[in-house]
């Protein structure tokens, strides 16, 4: 598998704050790659750099082997990179169908075919019954689906999902996971930022862990979850040692 997306040594500074520090990741063609890390680790910032909303302070981003570091956002979408927003950004005054159609118009200039595409994508993500509703009437789960649908309607090669499961209840998460898997089966490569570990573990082929702007671990989800550095990043310094001691103590008793 070749890398569809390669982020090379990207650093993003906001004044004195280094949000992303020399981070390099690769997303293999056809994979679901996870990007996890504690709050404030810089995951969303890295996403905004990949999607072109913020320029990187240094480093480069390559898509399909082409350098896209300086490419404006809308051109990246045309090239095949679509993103969702962690804080959902529906076009509130429009219906669900019209929302999705804005994405569909990217590859379907004619109205009829864009609307047909919007309907198809709406059904695919489970919004089929709500196409004529106003986007502002959707529940949180519905809005997350709408984010996904709009991005998907642009027919991307790479889909950047920023916490599409956050704020959903367990049954909504169970409903959403097959949708994400089906998108990958349809040939779309996915890079996903997620806090819901159960989802990361079962969805991702490989995982990068970001803490304080740096990539501290990478690999298969199971390995990464056992990595002491990752445990410490989430639970604090010395947590891995304490857990090991506890586990050893438990085995002796």
């Amino acid at each position: 598998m070749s890398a569809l997306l390669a982020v090379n040594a990207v650093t993003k500074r906001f004044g004195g704050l280094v949000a992303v520090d020399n981070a390099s990741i690769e997303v293999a063609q056809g994979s679901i790659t996870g990007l996890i890390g504690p709050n404030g680790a810089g995951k969303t910032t890295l996403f905004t750099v990949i999607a072109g909303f913020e320029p990187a302070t240094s480093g480069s981003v390559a898509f399909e082997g082409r350098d896209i570091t300086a490419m404006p956002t809308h051109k990246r979408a045309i090239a095949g990179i679509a993103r969702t927003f962690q804080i959902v950004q529906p076009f509130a005054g429009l219906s669900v169908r019209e929302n999705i159609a804005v994405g569909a118009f990217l590859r379907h200039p004619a109205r009829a075919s864009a609307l047909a595409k919007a309907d198809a994508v709406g059904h695919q993500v489970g919004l089929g019954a709500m196409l004529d509703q106003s986007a502002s009437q959707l529940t949180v789960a519905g809005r997350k689906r709408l984010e996904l649908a709009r991005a998907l309607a642009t027919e991307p090669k790479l889909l950047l999902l920023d916490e599409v499961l956050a704020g959903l209840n367990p049954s909504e998460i169970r409903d959403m996971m097959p949708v994400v898997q089906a998108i990958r089966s349809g040939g779309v490569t996915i890079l996903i930022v997620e806090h819901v570990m159960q989802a990361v573990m079962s969805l991702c082929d490989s995982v990068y862990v970001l803490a304080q702007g740096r990539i501290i671990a990478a690999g298969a989800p199971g390995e990464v979850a056992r990595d002491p550095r990752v445990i410490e990043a989430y639970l604090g310094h010395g947590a891995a040692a304490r857990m090991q001691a506890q586990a050893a103590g438990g085995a002796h008793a």
Partner: protein
Amino acid sequence: MTQQPYLPILAVVAGLALLPLGLSSNTVLNFLSFAMIITLAAQGWNILGGYGGQFSFGHAVFFGTGAYGMALLQVRFGVNPWLALPVAMGLGAVVGFAIGYLSFRARLRGSYFALVTLAFAEVFRISANAWGFTGGAAGVLVPLRLDPANMQFADKRIGFWLALAFVAAVLALTLAITRSRFGAQLVAVRENEEAARALGVDALAVKLKAITLSGAITAAAGCLYTQKFLYLDATLAYGPWISVEALLAPIIGGVGTVFGPLVGAVVLLGLGEVTKTVFANLMGGSVPGVDLVVFGVLLIICVAYAPRGVLGLVQGWFRRKASA
């Protein structure tokens, strides 16, 4: 989605076109012609402000450019008005593109954009007032020569029908835009520019297209104004009155709707006329500016109680009736 989305436009335009046949009053005809000119200016505003969400407080800059373009091309260069009109519309488009390029590229939005457009209109007004070429403070007089070839009509009804034809064309154009990719992208930019960009919308290009088109349409209103009154000065052409009417009409009629500017212009000017007449009778003489008081009150009522304008009220009323 009906099979014939353009049918309502045809019906409304046909209805309006038949009006003068039953009327002989010059006052009413003058009112109707003027309402069509304001509608046209408002339709231009509505494409940029209503659909694109970029509120301009200075559409006078386009109206005045069209009006002066039309007058000066005839008076100074002897150009036939039928030829001057498209040229003057082109000038409006150029001014629109230039203002758009300067302000949108600088990422001006909301009240900042509104203020910049207001400033542009004032700069144009003061320049036109000072410059000899535009006639300075004395203004420009287009010589009276009633002849259809000269776009001056002895029969006032023809002037009205000409303005109505422009309104009809822009109604159809607006509807076509709402059904196109450009329209979807324009509305997306209005609703959420960041999200639109993420979906591949070139927000700058979309806004530039909208303001260019908006400038051309509002300039056409200026052209028709020149031909109707045959006299211009800087305050008539570039004054705040037309900026205010161009934005009030869509807001009162229904912002970001196809018929909003038409409904709003008729309601606005109709109430203005009625108020002027009533006050003139009450006070025994005309009370200048009393119609502006009514406009202000209407705006407050609209913003507070009917943010979607008259059309929004009517739609809501029908919906309640249907569900009751």
